[in-house]
């Protein structure tokens, strides 16, 4: 009888815990969406059923677009995330390729350095970084975050790509070299194209991390029109003690949407990136 899956066993062992997990993971999003669709009269009515929407209304979304720079924040977030992802992938490849595929003195030491820089948290560096950015006269510019985000992303990208580059057999490169290709050509034409899944994983992961970043954005972006979504929402939609919950939830919902959409197209690569460090390494 061991291992036989009866209906009741399946209910207790699978469907019940799965339902609980779903509720726990997703109810904040449901609450977010429901709140954003209720006009204030219903939202703050203590007699109304909090989990039900009687009169759906888009008033909070309309206000969000009319009264705040939300559209600009979305644009800034996308721009910053894209630029810093591209920079991080480029620098990541330049670090990872020699470390994964070349033999030279100090290679081992460098690989450890990269692993350590990945684990150095941003919280350690923000005070000197703020001072540094101000002295470079980059305070309150998008350049400041485009330059600082890659510091968080490059070590991760490099680490993940090292793993991918190592999976490509050395013989492929040697064959290309014997056929007269230069090292550069062997890299760009033979090895890198084979590692496309690695680039997708690293890219998607870096992109979501860049969209999520808050501390540097909080430190460096003060003018409303150059803010990203996280600092815009916390800095301008929360005014003193007054919380405009309808608008806040509309902003949180719309602000999450781009990341979630991109993620949904590349789930496989995202999960590969997430688990690469711990399962393979």
């Amino acid at each position: 009888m061991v291992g036989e899956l009866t209906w009741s066993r399946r209910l207790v062992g699978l469907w019940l815990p799965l339902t609980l997990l779903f509720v726990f993971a997703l109810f904040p999003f449901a609450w977010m969406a429901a709140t954003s669709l209720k006009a204030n009269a219903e939202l703050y009515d203590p007699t109304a059923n909090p989990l039900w929407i009687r009169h759906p209304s888009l008033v909070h979304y309309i206000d969000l677009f009319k009264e705040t720079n939300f559209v600009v924040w979305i644009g800034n977030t996308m721009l910053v995330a894209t630029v810093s992802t591209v920079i991080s992938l480029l620098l990541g490849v330049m670090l990872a390729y020699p470390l994964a595929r070349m033999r030279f003195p100090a290679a081992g030491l460098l690989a450890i350095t990269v692993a350590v820089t990945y684990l150095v948290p941003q919280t350690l560096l923000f005070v000197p970084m703020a001072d540094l950015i101000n002295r470079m006269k980059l305070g309150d510019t998008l350049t400041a975050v485009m330059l600082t985000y890659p510091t968080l992303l490059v070590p991760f990208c490099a680490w993940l790509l090292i793993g991918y580059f190592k999976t490509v057999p050395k013989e492929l490169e040697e064959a290309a070299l014997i056929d007269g290709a230069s090292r550069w050509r062997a890299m760009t034409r033979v090895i890198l194209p084979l590692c496309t899944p690695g680039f997708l994983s690293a890219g998607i992961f870096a992109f979501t991390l860049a969209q999520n970043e808050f501390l540097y954005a909080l430190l460096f972006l003060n003018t409303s029109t150059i803010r990203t979504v996280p600092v815009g929402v916390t800095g301008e939609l929360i005014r003193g003690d007054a919380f405009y919950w309808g608008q806040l939830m509309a902003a949180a919902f719309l602000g999450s949407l781009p990341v979630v959409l991109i993620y949904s197209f590349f789930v496989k690569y995202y999960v590969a990136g997430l688990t690469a460090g711990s399962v393979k390494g």
Partner: protein
Amino acid sequence: MSTNPVLEAARPATRAVPAGRPFRLREWLEREAVFSWLMLTPPLLFLLAFLGYPFCYGVYLSFVKRPVAQPATFVGLGNFVNLWNDAIFWQAVWNTFRFTAAATVLKLVGGLGMALVMHQNFKLKGMTRALLLLPFIVPTVLSTVAWQWIFDPGMGMFNRLLMFFDLVKQNQGPSWLGNPTLAMVSVILVNTWRGLPFFGITILAGLQTIPDELMESATIDGAGTWARFRYVTLPLLMPVIFIVTTFSIIFTFFDFQLVYVLTGGGPANATHLMATYAYSVGMSSGQLGMGSAAALAMVPVLGVVLLMMSSYVRRA
């Protein structure tokens, strides 16, 4: 043939280069070490400028007194002595340890459970995994704002539900973020909510690498569900569990966003973490030296965790 005067003028110059030299340059470039260092130099310079230099500069700042926009004066260990005598700093240290320990245990146990549940055959598994990972994907600040609204004492979801089921009267529900103990519980709950899928999905990936044959032979040998889990699954999962836990400890210990947005460290510093405390000293009060010292006070913890990790990796 080109008649462009610029090209014509350039041509003799290229011819003037000795015939053997470009060839030798190419050969030099083909050497493994040369090629490697040419590739490595730009990213290393970048990391040196934006990670190495700020770190050293931070160490320097921790030894000076430097209010924003004023010259620095050397104070030696003065900043650290001030921190040592600062009750709020010690409270932040204690909070950080409590927060990290509780959240890590919850995420580990919950994540292990999630992975075991997910490691069964059922329809739409890929979709389930994608949906359960959502808390980890959505920008932390945005989901934290939603949680703030869930915890709202007046009209938040928790208290509305308590009211709806007549468990409390209007405006008499618990003040989730206003009571020191409840605020800490709330902060731990939100961190667990966000980090649990990371544990779950990574441990699941580890589970999937365990060959079915091992399970089958254990079953044939008479091992029950618990024995299979205890003596086959768990030992094989240990490396994954160890790495995920170490990562999570680091990211939880240095967490900033969650507490900054949810409670701002309050009420009465009950949820201040070392990171939010360093921010409030260094940025809000503008004492860069003290702020740097408070941030550097977290280094020993990072060092211990890294040492644990490297000794484990060496042993494995």
